[in-house]
């Protein structure tokens, strides 16, 4: 099967600290991969590398056929990231935010209503500036923008955070539908119960490296064999084997 993402000995630095310290990871097209790990293990950095926000320092990283070492900007139109921030404009309505995301992706605005309805953002909520919405509603608008972009790779960083149980169900349904349609999903989450139910595969990170990978049927516990429990930034550059 073709690979949506291929990382080999991938190292990324943030302020001279190796936030990714030699990641080896292959993700097949259409696969749903859940990334686990303690705080600072490198989950968010992995997602930011894959969408081209974090530069690759050394190693190999190819996402959707784009070599991130050469062109990390080129991959951005092909991916959709849900980060800790919602990337929304407070003074635009929910509908206008989604329409802006569609226009950026060169898609017709007609997809706005469907994306909002998928997260039950209907009626007055669609016409309300997102600055006046609750945190959970803002998260739903961010998810609607992400779904509307119809990107072949979704990068979801703690997507269940801030959502109520019903909204989490809507999100899980959207992920399942996208995966069934061939979308690749890399999902970093501390919500093991929810995320493992979605996963084809579970990857465990620690210290900026992938330390374990297995099927969702037999997920690895955090800090399992080979994990020293340190955060990525706690490694020095000299300890990172792939940095010359």
């Amino acid at each position: 099967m073709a690979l949506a993402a291929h990382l080999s000995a991938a190292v990324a630095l943030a302020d001279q600290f190796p936030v990714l310290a030699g990641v080896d990871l292959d993700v097949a097209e259409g696969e749903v991969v859940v990334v686990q790990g303690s705080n600072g293990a490198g989950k968010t950095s992995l997602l930011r590398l894959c969408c081209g926000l974090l530069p690759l320092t050394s190693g190999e990283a190819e996402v959707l056929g784009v070599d991130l070492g050469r062109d990390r900007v080129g991959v951005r139109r092909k991916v959709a990231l849900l980060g800790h921030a919602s990337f929304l404009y407070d003074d635009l309505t929910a509908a206008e935010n989604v329409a802006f995301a569609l226009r950026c992706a060169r898609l017709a605005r007609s997809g706005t209503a469907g994306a909002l309805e998928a997260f039950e953002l209907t009626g007055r909520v669609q016409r309300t500036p997102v600055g006046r919405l609750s945190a959970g509603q803002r998260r739903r608008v961010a998810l609607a923008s992400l779904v509307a972009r119809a990107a072949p790779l979704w990068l979801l960083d703690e997507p269940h955070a801030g959502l109520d149980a019903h909204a989490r169900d809507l999100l899980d349904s959207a992920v399942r539908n996208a995966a069934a349609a061939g979308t690749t999903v890399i999902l970093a989450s501390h919500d093991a119960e929810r995320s493992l139910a979605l996963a084809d595969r579970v990857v465990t990170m620690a210290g900026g490296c992938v330390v374990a990978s297995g099927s969702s049927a037999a997920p690895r516990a955090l800090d399992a064999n080979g994990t020293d429990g340190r955060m990525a930034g706690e490694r020095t550059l000299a300890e990172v084997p792939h940095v010359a």
Partner: protein
Amino acid sequence: MWRDAWTVAAKDLRIELRSRVGVNQVVPFAVLVLLLFAFALGPDRKALASAAAGLFWLAVLFSAVLAVQRSFAIESADGARDGLRLSGLDPAGIFLGKAAAVVVQLAALEVVVGAGVVVLYGAHMSGVGLVLGASALGTVGIAAAGMAYGAIASGLRVSETLLPLLLLPVVVPVLLAGTKTWDAALTGHLANGMPWLRLLALFAIVYSALGLLAFGPLLEAS
């Protein structure tokens, strides 16, 4: 690029129309600057009229700093800056769109400030074409330079204080040429304004070209 520019300009102007920061804060600030200068110079209408051109451009420049800061502030809330980088929009289009939105806001502001110098300072506009040409070129130059230096400052924690320090010295040619052109228009010596009008055009072209080329790297680096 043009499509992306339109997308960004429409978004920025929609946000400004809804938030009314320009109407409620930037325009009153410009009028306040005019009033303060009038207090400082005293009630002598002749002295005020002779200083009208320079005071117009000073009020516009100070207000432009606020408009540029506001343009980047809307991209700093809730990770919108990363969202813009991830949007896939052409950086040159983002530059053009954001600059165009600032040009529209400054043009509206200049109408108010221009009326202010006529009413408060008793300035008499005899060369309307020259005034409009200088205002248009000066505004484009200020907006283009503002976007370039705004991109540098916006990624830093001290952007609010750094931007005026970066931008105001750079736009001194606009202050100088704009004032000379307006002086020529107000005094009726239109031919004297033409060399300065060409300087305004050169400034606008140079900073527009610089912004088109450098905005992408600046957005990534800052």
